[in-house]
């Protein structure tokens, strides 16, 4: 299907109490099959030790692994229509991939290239877009939007990049995720949207809180770009992509939370203190039972967002805002509990818990904080501030 590049500025407001559209909140057999393929790939080639080693090496991305996921499994083209060389699947399938990537804190540019950049391109209408989408869908090129990772749906879009005429671009963008892995950057300038070869954009790596999703500052100094859309189309395309990105990020957050819960439960069953498993202490049992409830709820919220995006439901903006307002907090809480209930082990560099905490915390800022999304809920549900 083709994603509709809806602009949050002009999004339909769901009337309170709004008859909620019927949603399919389960996983289909196809989705479970896709999950199994992604999970086994990551188990083989992206275990915690490998993730840590790559993160320390300063080049977290693993191009060979990316190629297998993107091209062999076909995950990069899930959102791309078949006639453009993609799988013609939907946000539901992409969400399942993100669950697994979150569960593995995989350092792969899926959210940035296969979701955000792909959705932006799908919202553009110039002839240069189709070849680029084909390359993306085939996993031959990585393309990321040159916007700060914190940019949220419904927030004013920045345009710090100036066009000196004919696509000669100058400006700086900070906190661009996965720029290091990108072949092409999508730059939002005052005169529209441009594709810029990453090599001509001088990405300067920043030291990120989340080691598995590297950040860079992009400096364009009269760089040449190919124009993909006029300003109005560009802004609508970016806004639509941010909505999808935020909705699918909830699935990554679900995957993170699930891993943290599962690992913590396993640990407290094994670890003995006071001559019994620490998991037999009721204070911990109740904390973990509550966390399990939160994870089960996060799953419903994340599935709802993915399904609403997949069907292009007018309810999608509200459903996405609800999912983000909820799932961010659950992922962070799960990771924090994971560190705490692992005791000293949880504070060590060797144990993967910190990778999950860093990803969860960074994700809670990405594409809008929970507070920002609650503000959107206030608009959509007509519960205005004083």
């Amino acid at each position: 299907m083709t994603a509709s590049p809806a602009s949050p500025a002009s999004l339909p407001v769901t009337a309170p109490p709004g008859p909620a559209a019927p949603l399919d909140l389960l996983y289909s057999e196809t989705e479970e099959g896709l999950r199994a393929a992604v999970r086994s790939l990551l188990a083989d080639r992206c275990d915690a030790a490998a993730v840590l080693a790559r993160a320390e090496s300063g080049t977290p991305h693993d191009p060979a692994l990316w190629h297998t996921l993107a091209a062999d499994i076909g995950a990069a083209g899930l959102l791309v229509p078949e006639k453009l060389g993609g799988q013609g699947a939907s946000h539901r399938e992409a969400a399942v991939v993100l669950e697994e990537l979150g569960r593995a804190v995989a350092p792969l540019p899926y959210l940035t290239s296969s979701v955000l950049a792909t959705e932006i391109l799908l919202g553009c209408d110039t002839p240069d877009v189709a070849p680029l989408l084909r390359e993306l869908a085939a996993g031959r090129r990585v393309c990321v939007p040159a916007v700060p990772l914190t940019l949220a749906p419904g927030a004013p879009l920045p345009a710090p990049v100036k066009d000196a005429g004919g696509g000669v671009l100058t400006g700086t963008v900070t906190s661009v995720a996965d720029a290091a892995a990108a072949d092409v950057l999508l730059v939002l300038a005052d005169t529209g949207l441009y594709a810029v070869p990453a090599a001509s954009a001088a990405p300067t790596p920043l030291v990120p809180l989340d080691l598995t999703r590297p950040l860079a500052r992009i400096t364009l100094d009269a760089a040449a770009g190919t124009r993909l859309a006029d300003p109005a189309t560009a802004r609508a395309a970016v806004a639509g992509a941010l909505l999808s990105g935020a909705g699918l990020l909830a699935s990554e957050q679900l995957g993170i939370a699930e891993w943290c819960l599962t690992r913590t439960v396993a640990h407290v069953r094994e670890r003995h203190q006071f001559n019994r498993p620490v998991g037999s202490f009721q204070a911990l049992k109740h904390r973990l039972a509550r966390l399990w409830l939160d994870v089960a709820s996060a799953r419903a919220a994340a599935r709802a967002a993915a399904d609403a995006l997949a069907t292009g439901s007018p309810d999608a903006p509200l459903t996405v805002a609800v999912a983000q307002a909820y799932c961010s907090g659950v992922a962070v809480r799960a990771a924090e509990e994971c560190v705490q209930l692992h005791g000293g082990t949880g504070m060590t560099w060797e144990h993967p818990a910190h990778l999950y905490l860093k990803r969860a915390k960074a994700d809670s800022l990405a594409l809008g904080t929970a507070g920002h999304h609650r503000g959107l809920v206030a608009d959509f549900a007509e519960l205005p501030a004083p």
Partner: protein
Amino acid sequence: MTVTAEELRTRVRDLLAAHPVDRTASADFLRARFDAGLAWVHYPEGLGGLGAPRSLQAAVDAELAAAGAPDNDPRRIGIGLGMAAPTILAYGTDEQKRRFLRPLWVGEEVWCQLFSEPGAGSDLAALGTRAVLDEQAGEWVVDGQKVWTSSAHTARWAILIARTDPTLPKHRGITYFLCDMHDPGVEVRPLRQITGEAEFNEVFLTGVRIPDAHRLGPVGDGWAVARTTLMNERVSIGGMRIPREGGMIAPVAAAWRGRPELRTHALHQRLLELWVEAEVARLTGERLRQQLVAGQPGPEGSGMKLTFARLNQEISGLEVELLGEEGLLYEDWTMRRPELVDFTGRDAGYRYLRAKGNSIEGGTSEILLNIVAERVLGLPPEPRDDKDLAWKDLAR
């Protein structure tokens, strides 16, 4: 051979044709509906059902409601429908099923649950109410005290558990009975509640005689039977379909929209957080329902009661605060004997106070968290040193 949705629709139409809703007394219509197998379609034929998949019930209910058919007021007879019926179906003799299910479903006979005792709440299996068999009469003689019994004042029948062998460990000496609330020796005394009204009761049982034919399940096997009741009690909430902004959040959101003078920034933040959580709870319940229909029930059901208890309490607490000066007032402290718990027809103060019971009734939140931790997450059980001791030797 299973009944299809199409056949059910035909049956609904036949029922409506044979008993026009505008010309049939409501009890007559309900009896006819039971006899047509449209009461609970997954029950066996002759017992209110047709052995159809449970998932088809919703469509039947909706179609009958749309036709203006009377309903049996599930809120008034919730204990019978939610707990007594599934237990009788699972453990009852044919005679018991035939005798009790129809009037139960029609609402002619209200049921209550005589489980909790002053000394046995969460630790229900510690109960001390005695039942001794009078072999000559073929009757059990019951003595003891029950407490917090909802609807005992309107109930015609009770599900009752009592100790029949104190020399066995506590779980093994219990037997399950169906108790006639009109029997001599049954005394119901109102227990006034936090809300001012008396919705539950103390029940004193003195020399109550229960015929052996009203025993449910084998002697000494009452705990297994009771577990069926408790399981049904806890899951009955999750499968319900609620609309967006249904439930406790509705009146708060309405007050927020309708009365701008009440708004503050701090309350706004809390309202939005709870609105989001209520919406997520709705989606979680919906997902659970979809899993049930797809025949892959997930363990989420054990969690819904916990979630709703917490949300109801937080939301109703916010509502009282939002109302400001009005929140200082209460509708009516007159001692009353309500027939049902009515969250929607009452004011915010009542909702706030009554919701406190949501984390106690039907198993406390602490007990349910233990159940999730042990059965879902597989964490070690609580240490138990009372398991193998004879009940009579337990410390009390």
